């Protein structure tokens, strides 16, 4: 640590300070506990809701039960997490910078040889570390609880969903929320800014992401079409022909059950990253103009 450049020392110091602030305020940790409850309970509720459509074959075959669990847990965890990531993170992260100004910490930090860019980066990374650690905890513990409550499911799809959908949207929302609030002098207005941002993201981004997620989960079922037919025929040989025809019709691209995604994920990531860079640049300019200009 002693040989680190001063700039890294400052950055790690800011990240640690931000992590401690969030931990002591309890808002973000508490919301993550509630998020975990949502992810853990969502699968069970959805499964109970879908209980009426579960066939005897699904109940008898462990393979079909696993596929069914993957479908329900994947959909419920991703829907619950997207709502939490958008609405809760936007509101809670918005007060990060205004709180510094309200407490007088900003003036104190300004008296140190600490640049505006480093200050913003430290704050942003502090929030992101908190979010990443929280999401790893929610994803893994939530998955474990779902495994215990609902039975086996496909961890690959579950992990893919957390890594490529929920984590990027959580980082994008929390980052934009932190950076946009640079203009606020007091934390009272921060929740309103957070809600405004959440609504904009919910309207413009979330439908595309949910569409993509539903498409991926359905694709997963589609990939296992032959296995589904095989298992159904094994458990109900008398109805094999009817079941095969029904599955083939339901799981064909023309069938209603398959809604393949029309959204390009890399394109969405690019938009999110570009937004963060632009808003970050504007936040830096604003700080420079307000505090140095």
């Amino acid at each position, binding site marked *: 640590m002693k040989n680190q450049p001063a700039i890294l020392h400052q950055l790690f110091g800011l990240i640690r300070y931000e992590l401690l602030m969030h931990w002591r305020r*309890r808002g973000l940790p508490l919301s993550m506990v509630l998020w975990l409850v949502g992810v853990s309970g969502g699968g069970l509720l959805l499964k109970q809701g879908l209980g009426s459509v579960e066939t005897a074959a699904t109940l008898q075959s462990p393979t079909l039960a696993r596929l069914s669990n993957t479908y329900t847990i994947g959909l419920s965890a991703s829907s619950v997490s997207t709502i939490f990531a958008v609405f809760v993170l936007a*509101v*809670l992260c918005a007060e990060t910078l205004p*709180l510094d100004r309200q407490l007088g910490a900003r003036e104190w930090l300004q008296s140190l040889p600490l640049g505006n860019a480093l200050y913003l980066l430290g704050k942003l990374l502090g929030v992101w570390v908190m979010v990443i650690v929280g999401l790893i905890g929610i994803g893994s513990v939530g998955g474990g609880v779902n495994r215990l409550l609902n039975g086996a499911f496909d961890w690959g799809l579950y992990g893919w969903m957390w890594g490529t959908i929920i984590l990027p949207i959580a980082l994008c929302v929390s980052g934009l929320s932190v950076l946009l609030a640079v203009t606020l002098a007091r934390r*009272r*207005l921060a*929740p*309103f800014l957070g809600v405004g941002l959440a609504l904009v993201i919910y309207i413009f981004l979330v439908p595309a992401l949910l569409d993509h997620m539903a498409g991926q989960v359905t694709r997963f079922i589609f990939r296992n079409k032959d296995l589904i037919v095989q298992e159904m025929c094994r458990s109900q040989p008398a109805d094999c022909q009817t079941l095969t025809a029904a599955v083939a019709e339901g799981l064909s691209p023309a069938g209603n059950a398959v809604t393949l995604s029309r959204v390009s994920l890399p394109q969405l990531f690019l938009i999110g990253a570009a937004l963060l860079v632009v808003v970050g640049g504007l936040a830096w300019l604003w700080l420079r103009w307000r505090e140095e200009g």
Partner: protein
Amino acid sequence: MQSPLFLRYFRLTAQIIGWFPPLGGAVAMGLGLALVASAPPEAQTWPPVRIVEAIVPLGVALQAAFILAPDSEAPLEMLCALRRPLDGILLNRMLTLLLMQFAAALAASAATMVLPDSESFFAVVARWLSPSLFVGGLSLFTVQLTRQGVFGALMTTLLWGGLLFGGDAMVARWPFTLPFHIFLQPASVSLADYVLNRCVLLIVGVGVTLGALYLVRDEERVLGLRGGKT
């Protein structure tokens, strides 16, 4: 000529709690109504009145979380030293907040009347009045109980988002939760159930607001010297 004392007091309180949130809410409702009204009928997923119904309770509750949050009220010790009790100050701020937010909501409700397929004015007001008092009161109570403004904002956001997107499913699954669904649609239940829902929300809302006023009477607690989180 100097304006009356109550008007000056109102202006000062409005300045302290902030006039921007009701103004922002009014702008959001105006934009929402304009967007919905200008959309073709087949693209209207929500009736215009639901815009007002969704925005007003959220605005009231988020602002209520910070009107006297012990962790962000800089002159808290000075307020506690005033002759006027702290519950009086909180009540005054809450009433000012409601006055400003409801003025914007009434204007938006009146605006919905000119749109096609509009409901009666009182039906529109019933959609947001009780829910606003309910979530606003809960937010106020949570903040005074935990001494943290952010907890009120968090609870409000979760309650609002959860019931907006999952409230109907909640009532369908657990019918006993019907009285607590803040976005219950009058067309989906009987008139008696709807009136029961609005009355319960109103009574609970006023009850928890009184609870918050009771909590701030203990100044030592508000200052973090006893109980709560210091």
